[in-house]
């Protein structure tokens, strides 16, 4: 290449000039890019840092109760060994399954599947009773029955070992195991300790009836775990903080969930070493199923009758707290109740 003469004027040969079209295209593109930068940044501006914080959507649970049937009892107590007949009797006493479950309902049943234990150890809901319950609910015309819990131990193992998974599948229900994405933030207006807490939301999508079915167990901290404490299994997050004020937590659970009805599964009663048990000697047969529209009454009854803790003053504190907040009555002796020996 020839070296340029340093003194020559640095002008461009007109033949190197861009065409008008080329000039407009390139200058226009650059101007558009430069001009767009400002508005985009303006639209994204966040002078205080507040806009950049993630917004957490919350949802609320509906009230799943139905109006009480005329002349129905609050507690239906069936004694015996034939679970389906006992359930029919007990639920019949509180209004009958047809009163609670209508054709086309989507029903969620919440058993206690907290631990990886075989059914005979009594740490989890009795799978045979669950199967009978699903059968009744489907008979009443439910479009779909779902079974869900968020256990303490590994979910798949708990559902399998407890027999709940097989029982639910066998009876035609769909089992929901938790996944990291199945939790949403639940808002419970009026709750003292859990006004917002991650909740196992996925199985509740589209549900319009909720039934709880819980075993009767001794509990190291809150004295007894029955139908009210059972809702613990629908929460996620840092549940291990609950023990710092367990009674107020359980009272909050009673506020959080207003179920269609609950079943207290007194077929196996864990008298000691609860809530995990682990030894057959911790469990005695209870031969009882209780259906209730009032969780507190059911739990108070179970505490007295099934756990055999007769002094009312020993009752778990959460029953009194929940009663004080108008969530039911623990005075099981004075509610309408019907008891029958079945079979």
């Amino acid at each position, binding site marked *: 290449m020839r070296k340029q003469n340093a003194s020559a004027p640095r002008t461009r040969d007109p033949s190197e000039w861009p065409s008008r079209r080329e000039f407009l295209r390139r200058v226009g593109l650059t101007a558009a890019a430069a001009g767009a930068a400002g508005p985009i940044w303006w639209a994204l501006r966040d002078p205080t840092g507040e806009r950049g914080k993630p917004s957490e959507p919350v949802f609320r649970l509906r009230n799943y109760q139905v109006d009480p049937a005329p002349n129905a009892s609050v507690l239906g107590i069936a004694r015996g060994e034939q679970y389906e007949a006992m359930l029919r009797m007990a639920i019949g006493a509180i209004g009958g399954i047809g009163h609670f479950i209508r054709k086309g309902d989507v029903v969620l049943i919440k058993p206690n599947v907290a631990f990886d234990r075989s059914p005979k150890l009594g740490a989890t809901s009795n799978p045979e009773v669950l199967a009978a319950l699903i059968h009744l609910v489907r008979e009443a015309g439910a479009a779909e029955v779902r079974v869900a819990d968020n256990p303490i131990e590994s979910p798949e*193992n708990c559902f399998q070992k407890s027999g709940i998974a097989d029982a639910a599948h066998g009876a035609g229900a769909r089992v929901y195991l938790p996944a990291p*994405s199945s939790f949403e933030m639940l808002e419970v207006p009026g709750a003292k300790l859990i006004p917002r807490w991650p909740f196992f939301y996925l199985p509740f999508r589209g549900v319009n009836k909720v039934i709880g079915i819980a075993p009767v167990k001794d509990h190291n901290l809150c004295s007894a775990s029955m139908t009210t404490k059972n809702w613990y299994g629908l929460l996620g997050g840092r549940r291990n903080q609950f023990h710092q004020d367990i009674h107020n937590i359980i009272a909050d659970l009673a506020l959080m969930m207003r179920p269609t009805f609950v079943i207290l599964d007194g077929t196996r009663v864990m008298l000691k070493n609860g809530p*995990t048990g682990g030894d057959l000697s911790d469990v005695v047969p209870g031969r009882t199923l209780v259906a209730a529209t009032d969780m507190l009454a059911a739990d108070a009854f179970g505490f007295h009758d099934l756990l055999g803790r007769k002094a009312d003053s020993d009752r778990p504190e959460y029953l009194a707290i929940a009663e004080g907040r108008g969530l039911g009555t623990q005075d099981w002796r004075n509610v309408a109740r019907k008891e029958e020996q079945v079979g």
Partner: protein
Amino acid sequence: MSCGGKGGGCSCGSGGDPKPPANAAQPAPGNTGLDGNGPELLSLMQRVPARPRPAYFASDPPPSADPKTARKAPGWMRFFRITRVRVISQAFFFGLFLFFCWVTWFSRLEGYPVSLFLEIDPLVAVATAISTHTVYRNLLWSLVLIIPTLVLGRFFCNWMCPYGTLHQFIGWLFNTRRNIDKVAINRYRPIFGLKYILLVIFFILALFGSLQIGLLDPICIMYRTVATAIAPAYDLSADTLASRMENAGVDAGFLRASLFRPGITDPRIFYGAWFVGLVILGLVGMNLIIPRFFCRVLCPLGAFLGFLSRFALWRIDRDLTRCTDCNLCVSHCEGASDPHAALRKSECFVCFNCIDDCPEDALSFRFLPVRKHAPAAGLLFGRPVISKRAETEIPAPDLSRRRLLFTSVAGVLAYPFLRLSAAVNPGAFHAKAIRPPGSVEETEFLERCIKCDQCLNVCPTNVLQPSTLKQGGLEGLWTPVMDMRIGFCQLNCTLCSEVCPTGAIQKISVEKKLGLKQFAPDGPIRVGTAFFDRGRCLPWAMETPCVVCEEVCPVSPKAIGTYDVQIKRWDGKMVTLNRPYIRPELCIGCGICEHECPVADERAVYVTAVGESRSKDRSLLLRSKET
């Protein structure tokens, strides 16, 4: 991999682009296409009378004016070429491997041989046989690879190995090389001998009782990577996507069913997942620089199979009366075994690309081929010899005696370097080196564990973690340890002992784990002991009720008891505190107390390895059985 129409050979694997026409057919000066070889080729073509070529060589003009008379193999035969069959085999075994990873889970196991790839891996069997003098349980299956390799060569590398398939596929997918560069990149290089050096070092370490093959064994790498990086990453993405879809009202059932690890509350996490992930990205990425980099340079399993294949009765044979020394056979050679010259038997992956690529039909896979030098007369079996290179083989791996000597010394020295690390020594074992239940005593454990992390794969609670350098130095790297902050050892679960291929975790029953029935005299298997940090425990240090630990303790009677005291709190309120303590005779070290402890960072109750029943050195109580 759609190069079937080209006929000249499926390049499946390392280059899908069409082959340039063999320039030798219609020589054009200065455009031979093969640098360095072109002139040679031209002169050859002028010397030698033309010979009919296979008609399927597409770039050729039809040999006769009437195309109907052209010799053509039937369509199905061309489709089911041996290289295509090979690709089908690779896809099958890759799919089988992923399937095994997918079913390695509580609800799916159903007796599938999920560790099969490890059990047929001869390196695992031989290395553990060197370190333990026995062949554990299903490792006998490795014979199904050892014997065919002795007969056929390293076919495993290009027909079965899922890691090899991954490398080949990525190399093929992202290949940008021109043909001419492929010939250069796929020739043998001295660095490819490194794998033999590594193998010798691994074997010498195994001889001393330190099993390190798992660091580089491809099957171990694959299982480990899926367990700690790929499956968790897939599940996290798929679960998030599924929930987005469900929120939008779309059914995501298939996506939920595809999860590797369904039914978990928290995403699975693993120590050092980043490192395992980066290692596989790096090694796979190396294919862009050197095809099959891992297989050719590092793979100790390939090296071992290379040693075996020197006895192989079959190998690639080159017909000197047909070979024109065009070097096209090298262009897709997976193993860099130099089929165009002296064949390196120990490097050949038996991929058959060379046979497929040869425009002259000069190559074949033959039983006991005879080495042939080009005879002076220029005739072989009555036909004129074309190739200038002798037909011969290099049977043994590229490892000279001096190198072997140096390598052996290096191995002998490496052993004390590793073993003198404090962490793997009985004198200073790490408190958090908590081994899964059923594990053999630590010295024996290091003789057996191949770091495949199948136990991590199957563990339902995520408690099993790959050891970092902290718990076991390099020697213990990626071996399983339990981190009770992340998970806990589930009482009725013995899955890790089921899938362990080498018996580092011996197959145990639930009865043995819990000390039930006939195992009652031995008591339960303890993996460690729980301790309270009273300075951090809420009832002990902060006047706050808690005892989650007691609630979740799964043994009966509970190994955590409480002292129940009424105290006047700082604000004058009376509070009942259940202050927990450990009953060490009952504690099995499962760690659910640590997992559930609300003091989230440094737990107020925690398990350490002391008191584990597999080791006398690490026992705690004089009377360790239940009193």
